[in-house]
């Protein structure tokens, strides 16, 4: 129960920072995607089943405050979760900066997936908007990844990459 509660509180805090605090502090449309960072963290450290469910619920929650297409972030974040998991099992995960490189990969992937799935939802010409803001988004996510690393080490949260059991290696 404790990790679930922690996750809910973390998600609530991060969404509030993105939707309320950041726009109040910084007059920029682009903001660090902390929910994406949380997705990457879950992809690296949690078990696949629990993590996937949590990420899907997180994405659905995110949909209530981001964009106008319910379900879009649920799908996109879930796909990001699986791709990050796939890469984390095939790369050198010993460096703590691995989470930052994964957050950058996740940002690119999320942008592509939103363009793709957004077009299905009739989101119009979304790609010019996303391409125009992608460089700044990558910079923000890079720095928020760095801050996230510092916080994680301060709080004492685990950055241990999840190692699947044999039956999960399918």
């Amino acid at each position: 129960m404790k990790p679930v509660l922690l996750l809910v509180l973390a998600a609530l805090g991060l969404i509030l920072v993105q939707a309320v605090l950041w726009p109040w502090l910084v007059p920029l449309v682009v903001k660090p995607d902390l929910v994406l960072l949380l997705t990457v963290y879950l992809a690296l450290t949690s078990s696949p089943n629990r993590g996937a469910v949590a990420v899907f619920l997180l994405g659905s929650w995110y949909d209530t405050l981001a964009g106008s297409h319910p379900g879009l972030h649920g799908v996109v974040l879930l796909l990001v979760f699986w791709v990050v998991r796939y890469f984390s099992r095939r790369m050198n995960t010993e460096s703590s900066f691995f989470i930052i490189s994964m957050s950058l990969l996740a940002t690119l992937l999320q942008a592509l997936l939103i363009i793709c799935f957004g077009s299905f939802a009739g989101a119009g010409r979304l790609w010019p908007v996303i391409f125009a803001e992608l460089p700044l988004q990558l910079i923000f996510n890079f720095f928020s990844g760095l801050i996230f690393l510092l916080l994680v080490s301060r709080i004492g949260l685990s950055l241990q990459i999840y190692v699947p059991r044999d039956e999960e290696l399918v």
Partner: protein
Amino acid sequence: MLKPSRKYRTLILACLLLLVALLLYSTHLRKRPDTSLFHRMVLQLTAPLEGSVRSGVRYLTGLWDGYVWLVGTGEKNRNLQAENRKLQAELTRLVEVRFENQRLKKLLTFREQSNLTALPAQIVAEDASSWFRTQMIDKGATDGVIDGLPVVVAEGVVGRTFQVTTGQARVLLVNDASSAIAATLQNSRSRGVCRGQGDYLLLDYIDHEVDVRVGELLLTSGTGGVFPKGLVIGVVSEIRRADYGLFQTIRIRPSVDFSRLEEVLVLSPGAIE
């Protein structure tokens, strides 16, 4: 028996002294600008002493004024600083109230001039994602807000409501990529569809032959079923006419600064009809 000289010695001395004093005084009165040798000598001899005494007195006065007399001044200073901070905060609040008052007055004037039934609302949150342009307002179903109501400010169109909850609703801004509004160019009266593109808007389906000028106003046409006719959407900022093709590409600068939105008006269904 004492000699007379000895008997009156004190008196004589007193008179002599008095005489010397009077002489010196009379001499000083006559030669006022000049400083006598005596005075110079006295001044030179006493100057260091006076200086020392003055310094000592100053030190003691300073000690008294700065420490003994000011026992409560530190506390008084802290109180004054606290009061100053409080007044500063109050001043900031009043300035903010003045600005809010100006904005609300503008909205009120707009509402009175347009004769529309409108519900004032405040922006409480922005879109959590960087890719989309939505905002959340503090009015919801309990206030009579439903899906698809137009949201405006005095400067022009803001967007339309969606995802309405009991106490809050989200507004899809006109500059979101999903947004499309039926629009009319003010001078040429050509109709098209205005779509959001992030920082700007694009006007589609304007005939290649139509004469459009930079600076021309773009208004809602009222045919889309959401926005009443004649609301300002933006201003033509760029026109591209290719050598071929049926339509021209028209870029629109929104009349509303979405990053500075604080209060908006939600137009009620009666206003749209």
